[in-house]
C-alpha cells in the first residue's frame, strides 16, 4: 500500500492534465478488471462486470497546480491557480512541470502579508531570459507541488493525498476483490474534480449507475485550535453525511454504517461545512442517483504537505471492499 500510494502521489496530474497519472493507474488495474477505457473528458473507467444493479465507485485523479500565464523578459513566470490553491502557503515552495522543469515561488516587494495577491507572485525556474525560459515552458503549462513522500511511522506525509489516497484505495480494492461480484461495479478515476466536480458529472451521465460512492479525503478537527469538526486522524475512515455539494442518500449511508459495524471497521461520521465531492455531481445526473461518500481523514488539505493515517487508509479499503461485495438491490 505504501509503495502504491508513493507512486500515485508522485505522478504528475493537475486538473485538466491527467494523462500521466491515468497511465499509472491504468497500468495498476488493467489486469484486474474486465475492461478499461478513457472517456471524452479523460476519466478512466474500469469495469468489473456483473449482473444486477450498477455500482459506480469514484475517486478523482487530478491534483492542484499553477498555470503559467506569462513569461517576462527576464525569464520569470507569472501564474494563475488551478483549483483551490491559496497564495500565502506558496512562498518558498517548489513546483515542478511535467517535463521535470522545477522552480520556486516568490513575490514582488510587499509591505504586509495581506497584499499578497496572485498578480504579485511569480515562479522562478532559474532562467535569465524569455527565450531561455521558452525552451522549457510555455504559457498554459501547469506546475504541481514538488514534495517528496515520507513515511512518518503511523502516518504518511506528502503532496496530493487529495485524492491520490482515494485512488490508492480504489486500486487496492480492485486487486482484492474476488472473481464473482453480486453486481456490476464500475470504478471511475475522475478528472477535474478540483475545478468543480466536472469529470464525475459526465461519467455519471454516461454510466447511469444505480448507486454511487465517491472516495475522497476530508478535513479534520483534531489540530491545535482548528475548526469545529468531529473527524480525527486515525479513528477510521469517515462516512459523509453532508458537505456543500450534497446530503448523502439515507439508504446508502445506512448500508455503509451497518457494513462497518458488522465487519468491525472503525469509522467516523462526517459533516463537512465547506467543500464538495464527486458524489455531489453524480447524485444530480439525470433523474438522480442515490449517492454516498467514503472519506479519508486528511490534515492540511490543499497544501503541499498533507497527512493521512495508515490505519484509516487500510480500513477504507476494507470498507470499500465490503461495499462492492454487498448485494445492492435494484432501485
Amino acid at each position: 500500500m505504501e509503495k502504491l500510494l508513493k507512486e500515485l502521489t508522485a505522478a504528475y496530474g493537475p486538473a485538466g492534465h491527467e494523462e500521466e497519472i491515468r497511465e499509472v493507474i491504468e497500468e495498476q488495474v488493467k489486469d484486474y478488471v474486465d475492461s478499461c477505457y478513457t472517456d471524452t473528458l479523460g476519466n478512466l473507467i474500469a469495469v468489473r462486470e456483473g449482473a444486477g444493479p450498477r455500482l459506480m465507485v469514484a475517486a478523482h485523479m487530478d491534483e492542484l497546480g499553477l498555470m503559467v500565464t506569462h513569461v517576462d523578459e527576464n525569464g520569470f513566470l507569472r501564474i494563475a491557480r488551478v483549483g483551490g490553491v491559496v497564495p500565502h502557503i506558496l512562498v518558498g515552495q517548489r513546483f515542478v512541470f511535467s517535463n521535470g522543469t522545477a522552480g520556486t515561488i516568490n513575490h514582488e516587494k510587499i509591505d504586509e502579508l495581506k497584499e499578497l495577491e496572485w498578480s504579485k507572485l511569480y515562479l522562478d525556474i532559474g532562467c535569465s531570459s524569455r527565450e531561455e525560459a521558452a525552451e522549457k515552458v510555455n504559457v498554459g503549462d501547469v506546475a504541481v507541488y514538488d514534495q517528496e513522500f515520507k513515511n512518518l511511522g503511523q502516518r504518511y506525509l506528502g503532496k496530493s493525498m487529495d485524492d491520490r489516497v482515494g485512488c490508492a484505495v480504489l486500486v487496492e480494492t480492485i486487486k482484492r476483490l474476488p472473481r464473482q461480484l453480486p453486481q456490476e461495479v464500475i470504478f471511475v478515476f475522475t478528472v477535474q474534480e478540483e475545478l468543480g466536480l466536472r469529470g464525475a458529472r459526465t461519467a455519471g451521465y454516461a454510466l447511469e449507475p444505480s448507486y454511487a460512492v465517491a472516495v475522497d479525503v476530508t478535513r479534520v478537527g483534531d489540530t491545535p485550535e482548528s475548526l469545529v469538526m468531529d473527524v480525527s486522524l486515525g479513528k477510521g475512515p469517515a462516512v459523509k453525511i453532508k458537505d456543500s455539494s450534497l446530503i448523502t442518500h439515507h439508504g446508502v449511508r445506512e448500508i455503509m454504517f451497518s457494513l462497518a459495524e458488522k465487519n468491525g471497521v472503525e469509522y467516523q461520521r462526517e459533516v463537512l461545512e465547506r467543500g464538495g465531492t464527486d458524489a455531489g455531481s453524480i447524485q444530480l445526473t439525470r433523474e438522480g442517483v442515490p449517492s454516498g461518500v467514503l472519506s479519508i481523514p486528511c490534515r492540511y488539505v490543499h497544501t503541499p504537505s498533507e497527512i493521512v493515517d495508515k490505519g484509516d487508509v487500510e480500513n477504507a479499503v476494507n470498507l470499500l471492499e465490503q461495499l462492492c461485495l454487498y448485494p445492492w438491490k435494484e432501485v
Partner: protein
Amino acid sequence: MLLLEKLVSASGVSGNEDEVRSLLKSELEKKDTGYRVDTLGNILVENPEVEQQGPPRLLLAAHMDEVGLMVTSIEDGGFLRFDKVGGIDDRVLVSRKVLVGSKKTPGVIGSKAVHLQKPEERKKNLRAEDLYIDIGVKGKEEAKKYVQTGDYVSFYSPLQELGHSCYKGKAFDDRAGCAILWELLNEGRLPPFHAAFTVQEEVGLRGALVVGNALDLDMALIVETTSASDVPGSKEHEQVSRLGAGPVLSIMDASVVVDKGMLDTLIRVAEENEIPYQFRGFNGGGTDAGALSLSRAGVKTAVVSVPARYIHSPCSIINREDLHYTRKLVELFVKEVKGKK
C-alpha cells in the same frame, strides 16, 4: 461588416435577445438556411449532413446576449431604479445614455451633482444602488406610459470607426462572435457543422446548457470576445490579451479546460497559415464552453476570442484585423477537423 453594425445596434440584454434573434433569423431566412429556435430562445442551425458524415460532429457557438440593466421600480418622481443583468463594474454606469424597454425610450443615468456631495461622499465610487435612470418625465404616472418594471435597459452606443483599424461600440461581446458565425454559415465551401446562437450566457451560461442537452456532439468551438487590457497601468502579465495581436486562444478559464487536441490543431492551423494568435493570459471568467463541455457524456471544447478593450462597458474597442483573423482561423479549423478523419 455591415451585419456587425446591425448586430451591435440591436438591444439584446440576457433574457431579452429578441431583437438580435430576429435579425439573425431574417438573415438566415434570406439565405434559406434552416434553423429552429428552442424553448429558451437559442437559435440552432442543425446541418443534417453532420450526422451523415459522422464524427467529429462539430458545433460552432456564439452568444447573442449582452450585459445590461433591468428596471426594478419607478420612483414617485418618475426616476427608475435598476438592477444589473450580468457582470458590470458599477463605475462604468454613471453619466451614460441608455435605451429603456421595447419602445427604446431614451434615458440617462444620473447621480447627485458633485457640488451637492459632501467631501466624504466624493471619496467613494458611485454604486449601482446610488444611481437611477432619468427618462425626463414629470412623475411616476407619466413614466408608466413609457416604462414598466421588469423592462430591460441597454446601453446606447452606436458603432463608430476609431483610428485606422478599430471600432468602438457596445456588445461586441459577443456580437462579434455572432457575426463571424453568420459569415461562416454562408461560406459555401465549408464541411458541414452545427451552429448555435445562444441566450443568457452572461447570467450563467444558461442557454448553452440546454443546447448541449439537445445536440449529440463530439466537439464544440466557441467564438467569443475576451478582455484586452493592454492599457496604461496594466503590467505586461496582467493584460489577459492585447488588441491587434490576433485571435485569443484560451487554455483554461473558470468554466473549462480546453481540449488539448483542439488547441494543438488551432495553433498548427494558425502557424501554417501565418495567422497571428495569442494565448489568453488569465484563467478566470467563464464561457459557453463550460456548459457545453459538461453536457451529456462530455464534449471536447475550445474557445477562440476576438480581443476587446473595456469589455462589459458601453464603449468597448475591437480591431478589424483581429476580427478578420479570428474568422479566418475558425474557418480553417472547421476545414481541418472535418476534412481529415
